[in-house]
């Protein structure tokens, strides 16, 4: 079963990353900075547990706040640009963060070994889970408890006035502004909230892989982060989960037996899925149908 628990961990962490991009996408901003925020979360959380000996929970919280603070700082200049320019700006930010960690050395002696980030060679021995007796199942439960909390918060937000405001900005900025919505506050808040969630995902990622390096947080991860909510659909938070299960569970893990053909099929199936479900795997029609079904039951 350990394999399935491990797979569920991967799906959980990627779901968080996808939800961080979902949050930003609701306001109509396409951000490729989520991998950068995850990197900040990963390094901060790992440094707190490994170097400072902190408990994982406060470390994750601080990692989330650190990533949110940086996201907030990124959010302000990002207000000046939109569309493709924003994509490029956030991509550049993500690369800047990656390159920062590529050159970031901070090691201290712990017993006979030196621990901490070592530039391009990464940061090893982030073994909080195994060293504290956490089983793979328990780690999976923790990850999914966090995913559930984040999803519940986003689901509730989607149904509140805040959600309506976010979507209004995403649909038509001019119309939203004309009815008195403060665009700056909305966009920066969405970016910060997305940064917090990405920071959490990075913090957990660092601890279940036990080793992080700059290359983990490159353009590929940033693309995946934005692809999850787009492929899953923006109608509901559940679309992101479905997309992550489709990509990580079915395409990457499920097709592993196909060897070299897997990579070919990977792209083809994503294109096919987007053609068959242009509004996302969980589009508004499917969502309405599900609601009717749940209502009848």
């Amino acid at each position: 079963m350990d394999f399935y628990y491990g797979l569920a961990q991967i799906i959980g962490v990627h779901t968080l990353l996808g939800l961080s991009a979902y949050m930003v996408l609701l306001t109509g901003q396409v951000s490729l900075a989520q991998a950068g925020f995850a990197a900040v979360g990963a390094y901060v959380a790992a440094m707190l547990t490994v170097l400072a000996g902190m408990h994982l929970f406060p470390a994750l919280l601080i990692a989330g706040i650190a990533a949110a603070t940086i996201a907030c700082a990124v959010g302000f200049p990002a207000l000046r640009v939109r569309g493709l320019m924003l994509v490029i700006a956030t991509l550049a930010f993500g690369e800047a963060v990656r390159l920062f960690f590529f050159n970031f050395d901070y090691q201290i002696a712990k017993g006979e070994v030196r621990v901490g980030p070592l530039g391009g060679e990464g940061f090893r021995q982030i073994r909080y889970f195994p060293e504290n007796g956490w089983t793979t199942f328990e780690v999976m439960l923790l990850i999914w408890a966090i995913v559930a909390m984040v999803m519940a918060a986003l689901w509730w937000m989607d149904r509140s006035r805040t959600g309506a405001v976010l979507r209004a900005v995403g649909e038509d900025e001019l119309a939203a502004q004309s009815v008195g919505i403060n665009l700056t506050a909305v966009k920066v808040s969405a970016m910060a909230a997305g940064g917090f969630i990405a920071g959490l995902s990075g913090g957990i990622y660092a601890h279940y892989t036990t080793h992080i390096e700059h290359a983990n947080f490159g353009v590929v991860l940033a693309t995946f982060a934005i692809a999850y909510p787009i492929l899953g659909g923006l109608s509901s938070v559940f679309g992101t989960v479905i997309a992550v299960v489709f990509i990580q569970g079915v395409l990457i893990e499920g097709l592993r037996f196909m060897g070299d053909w897997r990579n070919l099929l990977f792209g083809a199936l994503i294109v096919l899925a987007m053609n068959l479900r242009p509004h996302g795997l969980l589009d508004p029609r499917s969502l309405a149908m599900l609601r009717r079904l749940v209502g009848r039951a």
Partner: protein
Amino acid sequence: MKSTALLLAATALVAFGSAAAEAQERVVKIYGFGAKSGVVRSFGINSEAAMKAAADEINKAGGIKLGDGAKGKVEVEFLDDRCNAEEGISVVRRIASTEALVAVGPTCSNVAEPLFGVLQKKAGDAGDTGLQFPIFTDVAVKGGLAKISEWAFRNVPSEAAMYDKLFAWLKTTRPELKTIYGGVEEDFAHSRATWYSVMKEKAGAGGLQVKGESKWLLADTNFSTQVREIKAAGADIVAISAHPFTTCGVLKEMRRQGVKPKLLIGLTSSSSLETLQGCAKEAEGIVIPTSFAPVTPEAETAASIVAKFNGSLDLHSGAAYENMFILKDVFESMKVMGKPDTVAADRDKVRQGLAKLQTTKGLIGTVKRTPDREAEKPFLFVYAKDAKWAVLHNPMN
């Protein structure tokens, strides 16, 4: 009535016969894993071919003698981790969820580091919930990784010893060489660590003046700036710590810009067929220490067998080939049972057996095992000559 009894007796006989045959010959599955896609896919393809070739040889010789006297037929399955840490961990969790007793891999050091971290650090430590599954690495060569976990073993060469000997040898045979300049594939754990922690250090210790280094990335395709830096340094030796793909890119650019150092030195991983296929002309003369060359009858035979499995034997796939025979010996000496109900005990036996090894038989000579589960492999200095690797010097002699 009589015919029914006869039928029952016949059925029982068939059932007993097949059970006895099953007990006599079991399948021992050994998994390999590594990069079979992406930039370094050739490493995984060659390792798979080497493992399958070795399994074929073992089976032809009667298979593995298991603890209860039954014969074990070796089967190899190879999984692609795409040189990705998350996938590497997932692949090993998948393998560990089967009845496999050991896995050979991975290709990339950036997969080995997190993967070894997921394993239990100290075997038998009840407080450590890390994965208890033996890994016997063939390719990932970055120094000192096996010490991360007592379940991790490596049969990879010690680059520190290789370059130490190389620079010492150059000092005596080529005293006119005074300066060295490096070229580093900066974003790949192995090449980066080898330049900064091995080549640069050993060159300095060998009396060479290190004039600096130029950097590029694994996915780079344009090296004009870096080669201009190399040219400006004007060093006697240019040491390229990069994998075949960018090594060839740099060498081609050096040729274009007319950069001709007195000596070229390459990274161990570039002493492969890929370098010669990619840039034999430009690589002419490059000197590389390697733990494999077809210099013994065993190595020659192994290379020809692996070629039949559509692979090429080099220092990495050579280790995969050796690992299979080492594992066979360990299975037999530790009396591994290979039964579904003895999986956990068998895995521990494999770990203990690998930990006990003092020496192993290598394709070009005896390999010493170190207490921190690494190997001290014999090695040679080879150089590219007429699109082939030729032996330049054998430090073992």
